[in-house]
C-alpha cells in the first residue's frame, strides 16, 4: 500500500490534478478545501505526508503548519506562488519540510514526495552517501569526487554534511547559519554565500552551472538527488 497523502488546497483544479497524478503513482489521496478541515483531516486520517497550499481562504498556511506541528512531525510540503517568498521561508522555519512554487511539474512534486517519505523512514543512518560522482563518508569526514580526495575546510565540511543529511530537501539559510555559527549566525549571512561558492568550486564540475548544490532563491540550498 502506498503512502497516504493529504492535499490541502482551495483550488479544485489543483486537487483534481494531484489526485490523478498521485493515485496513478500508487499513493492514497485525501483532500481538504480549507485550513480548518485540513487540520482536522490531518488529525483524524493520519496521513503520511501533507501537501499544503499557502493561500487558503480561512486559516493562513502558516497557521496550519504550526497547528499540525503542535502534535505531529508528518512531513509538510508547501505549495506557494511567486511573491510569497517570505511566507514560504517562515513556513519552513516553522517546521514545514519542503516547498514547491506554482506552477510546478508533476515529476518535481513526485520527487519531493519521495524525498519526504525517505526522510521520514530515517534512512540517513548510513555513514557513506553517494550521489552521482560525489562520495561522502560521514564517519571518516572524507569527501571524494570521481574517486579523487577533496580537501574541505571544517566549515565547508559542516555545510556539506547538513546538505547531505537533508539530501533532496531544501535547507533554509537560517537553519544552516544557526547550525554552524549558533545564534550569532544570522549576522553572517554573506559568508554563507562565500562558503557555498568555495564548496562548489571544489566539488562541482562547472560551478557556473552547479549539479550538486542547488540554490533555492531567497530560501536556501538543496543537495540534488541524482539517481
Amino acid at each position, binding site marked *: 500500500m502506498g503512502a497516504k497523502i493529504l492535499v490541502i488546497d482551495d483550488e479544485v483544479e489543483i486537487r483534481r490534478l494531484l489526485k490523478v497524478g498521485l493515485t496513478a503513482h500508487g499513493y492514497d489521496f485525501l483532500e481538504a478545501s480549507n485550513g480548518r478541515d485540513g487540520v482536522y483531516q490531518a488529525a483524524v486520517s493520519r496521513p503520511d505526508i501533507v501537501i499544503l497550499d499557502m493561500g487558503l481562504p480561512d486559516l493562513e498556511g502558516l497557521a496550519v503548519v504550526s497547528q499540525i506541528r503542535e502534535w505531529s512531525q508528518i512531513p509538510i510540503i508547501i505549495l506557494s506562488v511567486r511573491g510569497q517568498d517570505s511566507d514560504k521561508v517562515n513556513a519552513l522555519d516553522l517546521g514545514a519540510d519542503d516547498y514547491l512554487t506554482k506552477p510546478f511539474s508533476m515529476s518535481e512534486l513526485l520527487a519531493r514526495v519521495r524525498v519526504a517519505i525517505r526522510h521520514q523512514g530515517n534512512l540517513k543512518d548510513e555513514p557513506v552517501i553517494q550521489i552521482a560522482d560525489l562520495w561522502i563518508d560521514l564517519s571518516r569526514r572524507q569527501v571524494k569526487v570521481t574517486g579523487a580526495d577533496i580537501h574541505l575546510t571544517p566549515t565547508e565540511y559542516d555545510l556539506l554534511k547538513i546538505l547531505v543529511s537533508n539530501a533532496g530537501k531544501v535547507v533554509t539559510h537560517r537553519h544552516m547559519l544557526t547550525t554552524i555559527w549558533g545564534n550569532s549566525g544570522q549576522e553572517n549571512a554573506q*559568508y554563507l554565500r562565500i562558503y557555498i*561558492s568555495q564548496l562548489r568550486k571544489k566539488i562541482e564540475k562547472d560551478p557556473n552551472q552547479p549539479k550538486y548544490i542547488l540554490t533555492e532563491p531567497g530560501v536556501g540550498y538543496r543537495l540534488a538527488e541524482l539517481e
Partner: protein
Amino acid sequence: MNRESTNVSDAVLAQSKKQRRGKLTIYLGAAAGAGKTYTMLQAARERISEGLDVTVGLIDTHGSPATDAILDGIEVISPRRLEYRGNIILEMDLDGVLQRRPQIVLVDELAHTNIQGARHQYRYLDVEELLESGIDVYTTFNIQNVESLNDTVAQITGIIVNEKVPDRFLDTADQIKLVDISAEELIRRFHNGKISVPELSEQVLRYFFRPGNINALRELALRYAARTVGKQMEEYRNQRGIDQPWPVQERVMACISSSPFAVHVLRQARQIANDLNAELITVYVEPPFSFQSGKDLISLRVNLQLAEDLGAKMVTLSSQDVSSGILGLARQYNVSQIILGKPLRPRWREILHGSVVDDIIRGCTGMGVFVVPGYPTPKEPPTNDHKITPPRKNIGWPLMLSLVLVSLVTLIGNLYGNYLGLTNIGMLYLLPVVFASARLGVTPSIIVALISVLLFDIFFVPPVLRLAVYDARHLITFAVFMVVAFTTGNMADRLRLRMREAIYRESRTKALYDLAKGLSAVTELDLLASKVVSHISETTDSQVVLYLPQEDGQLRIIAASTAFSDLAAGPSELNAAKWSFRNSHRSGLGTDTLPNAKGFYLPVKTEEKIFGVLGVKPVKNFFTAEQINILDALSGLAALAIARLELAAETHKIITLKDSERLRAALFNSISHDMKTPLASILGAVTSLVDDGDLYDTNQTTALLMSIRRGALRMNRVVSNLLDMARLESGYMRLHTDWCDIQDIIGVTLRENREMLSDHLVKVELPESIRLIKVDYALVEQVLTNLLHNAVKNSPVHSEILVRVLEKQDQLMVSIIDQGKGIAKADEEQIFEKFYRLQSAGNVSGTGLGLSICRGIIEAHGGRIWAKSRPGGGAVLNFTLPVDEDSPRSGENEQEGGIIDNGS
C-alpha cells in the same frame, strides 16, 4: 459686450446666491413700541400653521402680556445666560440655533450689541452667520439704527444712537415689512407704560417720544421701506428680462480723510447715493506730507470701516495735488456727484495752502459738488477697543544735543564775543536751530529757535543781560531765526515722511517679492507652508501659524513660526480660525468676530476658493493699517502659491491618467497576442489528444504534450513579466536585498531556463574571485532571464550566447552577448521603452515588456542598462550593479575563509 446679457446673468447670479443663503425678513418700525415683535410673532404663527419649522432664537417681550401670549407654544431655543458686570444678560445661543437648524428663526432687536465674550460683537453678525448657513431669519429693527441715517436721526431727535447696523447688511434683506402706527398711538402707549427701553433714562425718553420726532422717524422708515420696494421691483424686472431703457448707472463719490468729520460726509453720501440709486465710491485722500498722529490713525480706521459698512467701493488717492487728483478720479469713474466735507480749518491756512473745495468747484465740469457743512463732532466712542499707537519719534537725545549746542554757542560768544562781533554770533546761533530742525521737525526746532533768540538777546544784544532790545533792527534777526526754524523744520518733516513712505513701500514690495521668489520653486505643501509662515513672521514681526484643512476636513495647524505659539493654545484660537475658514472672513483680534482671541485670523483665499487660515499674533497686540495691508497681500500670495500646487497636482494626475490610459491600450494589444498564441497551441494540442487520442502514435502524442508544456511555460513567463511590470508601475516593487553571489544567480537562471536555452550554446565567463552584491535575488534573476530570452529570440539556433561578468572598481558589469543580427544604432536606447519591439525582427514575439522591466529593476538597484551592437555582428546587452568596497569576496581565500570559522 451685450449689456443686457450681463445684466441678466447678474440677476441669475444674485438669485442663485440667495438660494444658498437663508432669507432675511426685517420688521421695520419707526421707534420702540411700534409692535414689531408682536407682528413678527404673528407671522411666525402663520408659518407654523403652514407646517414650517419655526423656533425663537431670542425674543424680549418686555413683559407685554399680549406678546407673551402669542409667544406661547413656539419653540424657544433657550438663550445663553452670561454674566456681565454682575448682571445676568441673555444672549442668543448661536451654536444652539445652528445645531437645531430650524427653517425659520426669530431674532429680536437686530441692532443689539453683544456683550463681551460672545462670538460676534454685534447681533447682526450672528444673523449673518445664520443666513450663511441657510436658515431664514425674521428680525426686528428700528429706523434710528440704520448706519447712514445716524446723523439725520441725531439731528431730529438730539439723541446719538450707538447701536447701528451697516447699510451693506440691511441691503441684503429679502423683505422689509413696515410696522407703522400713528404717532399719537405710540405716544399713548409710551405714557401707559407699555414701552420700556431700559438703556435710556426716563427723561431722555420723554424728550424722544414727541409727535415731531416720531413723525420724522416714521417718514424716514416709510421712505426706507419704499426704497427697498423700488429696488426689489427693479430686481424683479431684471430677472424677468423686462425690457427697459438702460439707465446710466449713476456714481457718487465721497472724499474723506482721516478727519473724524468724514463720518458725516460718508453718511450723507450714502443717503444721496440711495436717493439717486447710485453706486457709492469713497476716495480716501492720503495726506501727502503730513504726519499722522495716533488719533488720526484711529479715526481713519473708523472711517474706512464705516465706508465698507455702507457698502462703498474704496479708492485711495495719494497725490500731492489733491484737487486735481480727485477730479481725475471722478472723471475716470464717470462720477455725477462729488461729495466733500467743508473744512474746519481757519481761513489763513486756506489762503496759505489754497482750498481744495474751491479748486474742485472750479475744476468740475459736468459734475455736481455737494459740500457737507462742517460742524463740531459729537464725541463718539471708538467702535473698537483696539488701539493703534503711532510710531514714536525718538526726540530725546537730539533735543539735548541741540540745547548743548546752544549753550556752547553762548559760551563761545561770551569768550570771543569781542573778536567775533554781534552778527557772527547771531550766525552761530543759527547752527543749533538748523540742526534741530533737520533732526527733529517743526515743533522742537521752533523751541530751539526761541531759546536761541532768548539767549542771544539776553547775553549779546544790548542791553546785555536784559530782555529789552534797544535797536529795533535786531528784531529782524529774530524773525529770520523763526522763519529758518519753521521752514527747515517743515522741509525736514516732509523729507522724513517721504522717506518713511518710501521705506514702507520698499519693504512691502520687498516682502512680496521675497515671498513670491521663495515660493516659486516650492513643490511641496509642507515646505510651502513653513516658508509662508516664517516669512510673514519675519516681515510683520509676529507669531504666525497656518491652518489648512486635512483630509478628514478638520482644520489643523500645519506650520507655525515658533514651536510653542500662543496661537496654538486653547480652543478660542481654533474657534476663531475655524470661523474664519467657514465664513471666509477675518476674525479674532481687532475684528468684530471673536475679538477676544489672541490672534488675528485671515482667510488664505483666491477668488474661487479658500485654502486655509493664517493666524497672526502681533508682538504689541495691535496691527497698523500698513501691516494689515501687507498681511492681506502676503496671504493672497500664499493662496496663489497653494492654488498653483493644487493645480500642478491636478495636472499631474491627469497626465498620469492619460499615460496609464495609453499603457492600458498598448498592454491590451500586446497581451492579447502574447497570451493567445500559447493558449492556442495548448488548446489545440489538448483537444487533439482528448478528441482523437487513439489516432496518434507515441511519438506524435509526445510531440503534442511537449507543445502543451512549451505553451504553458511561455504563458508563465508572460504572466510573471506582467506582474513585475504592474509592480514597477504601481510603485509596489520593493527590493528585498540580500547578499548574493552573481555566479549563483547566473547558475539558477540557467537551470530555471534550461528548456528555453536548449537550442543555444550558453557560455559563462567569470573572474576567479568576485565580490558579493547586495541585490534582490529574484529580480536580478528576472533581469537575466529576460536578457537571455531576448538573446534567444534574436539569434539563430545553435549559436553561442555568452554571459560575461567583469568587476570594475565599484560595480559589477554583466554582459549578455549574442550572435544575432545586432541592434540598429537608433534602437539602442528605444528597446528599453515599454512595448517597443524591433520592427525588422520578423515573427519574433514578445510583449515588448521584458527589457523595460530590466531597466526598471536595474535602475531601482542603482545600476545602468544599455545595449550595443557588436562590430562582428550580434548584440551586447550590458548592465551594471553597484558593489560595496567592503563587501566580501568569493574564491579569494582558498584556505579557511574568514574570521567566523569555528570549525567543528
